[in-house]
């Protein structure tokens, strides 16, 4: 049985992000006027203040910018160790997505590793996790 992850409260800003995996695609909010990727998602562009923003799909690949192997059981149900990483997302310059690296031994993860998104569905939420490629 997979441990229930904390559930994001869905809002006008974030609903697309947390449900994006329904069609297997990862999306980020992007400004249609100046092309800035807005993460965390906003309804206005932080570069040009345009409200012409919309979720846009990305390839779903990226590179591990940094990571940590967590060994601490922050609650009794947690299975440790596991990898938490910040992934630099291809096609979304400047965005570093905090996520988990799954499907590989924890001691095989390195900064610079190439990764691809895989979604873990729990209820209405599709959690974007990443696997090494």
């Amino acid at each position: 049985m997979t441990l229930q992850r904390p559930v994001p409260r869905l809002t006008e800003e974030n609903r697309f992000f947390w449900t994006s995996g329904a069609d297997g695609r990862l999306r980020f909010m992007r400004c249609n006027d100046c092309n800035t990727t807005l993460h965390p998602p906003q309804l206005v562009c932080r570069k040009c203040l345009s409200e012409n923003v919309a979720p846009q799909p990305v390839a779903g690949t990226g590179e591990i910018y940094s990571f940590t192997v967590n060994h601490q059981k922050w609650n009794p149900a947690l299975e440790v160790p596991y990898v938490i990483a910040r992934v630099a997302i291809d096609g979304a310059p400047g965005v570093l997505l905090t996520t988990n690296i799954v499907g590989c031994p924890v001691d095989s993860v390195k900064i610079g590793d190439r990764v691809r998104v895989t979604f873990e569905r729990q209820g209405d939420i599709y959690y974007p996790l990443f696997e090494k490629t």
Partner: protein
Amino acid sequence: MKRDSAYITGIGQSEVGVRLTRSPMLLTVDAVKEALQNAGLALEQIDGVSTYPGRMSVFLGFSPIGPDDLIEAMGIRARWRSGAAEISSQLGAVVAAAQAVRTGMCRHVICFRTVYEAAALANPQEWPPLKRDTVDGGAQWTAPFFAYSAANWTAQYASRHVERYGLTREQLAQIALNDHANAARNPRALVRKPLTMDDYMASRMISTPLCLYDCDRFTDASTVLIVSAGDALDEAACAPVRIAAMAGTVERPSWDQTEFMACAPTGRDLWKSTDYKPGDVDTAQLYDGFSFQAILWLEGLGFCGTGEGGKFIEGGGRIAIDGELPLNTGGGQLGAGRLHGFGYAHEAVVQLRGAGGARQIPGDPRVAVCASGGGPLATALLLARD
């Protein structure tokens, strides 16, 4: 004395411990009484109250006492008060107080930080823990990936430093070793037993590369600083310490969208409003709730270049009490306890007044820098006896 400056006139601290039975309000009152005596002020002269982050009902052990609680309990006649979470960081409460006295809104402000996390953890019926089943705001970008703790968030900045600049475990260990050595000379420190490099290297990992000794532990305590107006110093009886400069810059209020923590722009900006330079600093008291944060503060404040923090503290001699830049002389948060930011300003005042006893740095210290916060939280204060 500079009449238009703000000064720290009094410092106080309660008992520091783990699972204390004395209530957090009474710990706070203990610290206030000591600070009043230390400043030579009477409670009737206090007309302002400032704290961080204010009473937090969702996580009461983290901050059980707000400004209103203290005003009511002690019968303080406050002309100004503040208890805010969305400020530069813990010591942002001192920045707010300094602004208040400099603009004439009040004259003597009690600034306090009371933590009760250890006692709260031991008694979840009375002190409900933080609920994390549903998350929003910034927490939604970390908690869903079981990145619950600032240890996890800080560790990823540290990993990057290891990869890019070659930070070693032996270098990182110097923060914890120095804290433990200094805490052993501080009668109020939480941890009084020494730490060896072997102990450090053998300890279990919490979140790589941070091991047990790189992380502070829940503590019960209250720390108080009294901030007074420069034209009200004759009302006190103490050796006042001037707040010579303040900074609290953030470029992205985020734990994961930045290359460096907010200590980088904050450290840079601290020097913009003063003629003092990093080379004038006699002691540094820098946030080390996680050891690595102190390394980034050393870099951010310009004591060394970006990426050079590990080499700067290598061997520990430079940051020891008798070194060229004594660091966290009271034991920091890894030794003195998780006083959550306020301990650094408290210790800076102790040192500038020559009141450090067995841990007093040599010479005649005139200038100290103290800093609180990690991630998007950062406040730096330059304190001077000038």
